[in-house]
């Protein structure tokens, strides 16, 4: 893939995430989406930069704030939206919702309602790739807050000890729900923790999709060729509330507005896009295409049926027994 294509693809991904999230916010507030939703607004460059460095058979584990990762790994917006609506046509047949979206067909091993729940799953996917002697890699997305979970430590130590093909991507958006990360996190940079595992640590501007892509590409290539894991910290900012409906009493509007000025999409449009000579019309076309796709996704979700109550009893166990799995 040439640079031009890559840039346009990344732009499409960022715009898809942005528009998807804005639409989700609107639909949630309108009462069409049940449950709790956590938006990825302002952090689009990270999932985009990282996943654009992955193959479709590579794995990712995601978080409670997982729509961006899911889109970036290549999921369909219609089935995602249907899942958020709790419909039978959703990725998880309505059983998961926003916090439990997954698409195993593209290596997206699931959002996770447990903060820090993905570290070990990604590590296991890396272990599995090594055992099966494939050259797949696994990426674990996680937040600054999650870096204080014990699972972070156990996974980092294991991945490094065994040189597993795992990239740990910290999305440091400076907040763990209502808590500024420095009040509960004993280091300035999460990447400072790499030393404690003899692991390579890299820090990038998480609002610069090119920088994220470059760092991720590098880490992925190393991992793929036996060079072991990397801890990649991407600095960013959570532009929306922790969840849709969050009164956000713990921070000022000024702080938020200042950070909004660093919007990664804007920055791409006015920076890389210009210097790399992308045609404004191409970008505009992408936006329009995404908008159309999203409108269809919403229509699809709305028109899809709810599951029948009895479906609640399905999908607990795989068909099994010695024969099924022989």
């Amino acid at each position: 893939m040439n640079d031009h294509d890559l840039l346009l693809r990344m732009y499409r991904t960022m715009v898809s995430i942005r528009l998807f999230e804005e639409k989700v916010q609107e639909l949630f507030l309108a009462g069409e989406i049940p449950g709790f939703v956590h938006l990825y607004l302002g952090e689009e460059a990270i999932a985009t930069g990282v996943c654009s460095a992955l193959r479709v058979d590579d794995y990712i584990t995601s978080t409670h704030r997982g729509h961006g990762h899911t889109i970036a790994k290549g999921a369909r917006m219609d089935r995602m939206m249907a899942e958020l609506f709790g419909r039978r046509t959703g990725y998880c047949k309505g059983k998961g919702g926003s916090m439990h979206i997954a698409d195993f067909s593209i290596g997206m091993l699931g959002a996770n309602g447990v903060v820090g729940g993905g570290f070990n799953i990604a590590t296991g996917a890396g272990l599995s790739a090594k055992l099966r002697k494939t050259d797949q890699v696994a990426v674990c997305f996680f937040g600054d807050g999650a870096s204080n979970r014990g699972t972070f430590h156990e996974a980092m130590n294991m991945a490094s000890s065994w040189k597993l093909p795992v990239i740990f991507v910290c999305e440091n958006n400076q907040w763990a729900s209502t808590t500024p990360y420095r009040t509960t996190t004993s280091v300035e940079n999460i990447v400072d923790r790499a030393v404690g595992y003899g692991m390579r640590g890299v820090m990038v501007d998480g609002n610069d999709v090119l920088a994220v892509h470059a760092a991720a590409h590098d880490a992925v290539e190393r991992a793929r060729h036996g060079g072991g894991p990397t801890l990649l910290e991407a600095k960013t900012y959570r532009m929306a509330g922790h969840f849709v409906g969050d009164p956000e009493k713990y921070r000022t509007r000024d702080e938020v507005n200042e950070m909004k000025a660093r919007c990664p999409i804007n920055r791409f449009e006015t920076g890389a896009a210009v210097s790399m000579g992308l045609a404004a019309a191409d970008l505009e076309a992408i936006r329009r295409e995404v908008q159309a796709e999203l409108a269809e996704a919403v229509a699809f979700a709305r028109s899809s049926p709810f599951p029948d109550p009895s479906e609640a009893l399905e999908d607990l166990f795989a068909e099994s027994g010695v024969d099924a799995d022989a």
Partner: protein
Amino acid sequence: MRNISFAQATLEAMQEEMRRDPTVFVVGEDIARQGGIFGQFAGLADEFGAERVIDSPISETAIVGAGLGAALTGCRPVVDMHFADFLGVAMDEVFNQIAKVRYMFGGQARVPLVLRAPDGLVRSAAAQHSQSVEAWFLHIPGLKVVIPSNPADAKGLLKSAIRDGNPVLYFENKDLYRQSGEVPEGEYFTPIGKANVCREGTDVTIVTYSVMVSKARKAADLLQAQGISAEVLDLRTISPLDRDAILASVRKTHRAVIVHEAPKIGGVGAEVAALLAEEALEHLDAPIIRLGLKHVPVPFSPPLEQFVVPQVEDIVRAVAGIVRADEGSARVLEGSVRVLEGIVR
């Protein structure tokens, strides 16, 4: 008496105990700045400061384990688990440390520690934010477990828990926070280990607790209209179970239906049913029916979520089923058996 919300009632308990005893403190996520994600800690940080109302890292083993360390050394910590679903993260601390230190060390330790765990279904929060896990702790010697169903008990049990010299798990149902109810003026304590007959009846005992108490009461109202008199027993404490109250009620009504939101299989209802089958079998006129979550994780989509959890109609149907089945045929049988029993025993 005043009418206040469940959340407000727990807040009053915290305020009263924190004012009284400077060694009481609270630690958890989103407590100080946010006042708790359900508003249950609103304003506490303003009154007691960041030293005693502590926003923690996302480190459940640390907040629970440090709670134990603080309890062993002169404090009375209240640890908030955010969601009961995250008790699993700190299960070793609860199960191997907190529950055991006093006993293992031959009674040297005191563990005045409260773990607060918001549980139950709320607004399609899905599989990892909707659970009720109290039954695990019934099976762990060394813990007390309380689970209020209304604002008055919420306050009284929380105060008793904080004053207790032993570890107490305090389960508070998320759907109850906004519900209001009468709460006495002045200081009072709800005793740990005592169930409450919150509706008297003669035909059947509905044994239940937490959010299911109100469903059981609604069911009892509907049953009344059908001529069935249901007693509703609110357990309030899960461990130790109030065996006397359970046995007394069922010896009176001769029938039991047990209802909780946690999975039916292996739940608290199993222990209650087993207790009855062991101690009151000869008083039973009908099978013991249990209602609980169907045996799946809690699904997200609203129609699925409602389907897996017991509803008022399920309770009505279950009760009517065992009372009716009895009515014609079995009443006869029952009478005859009693006579026979009198003769042979």
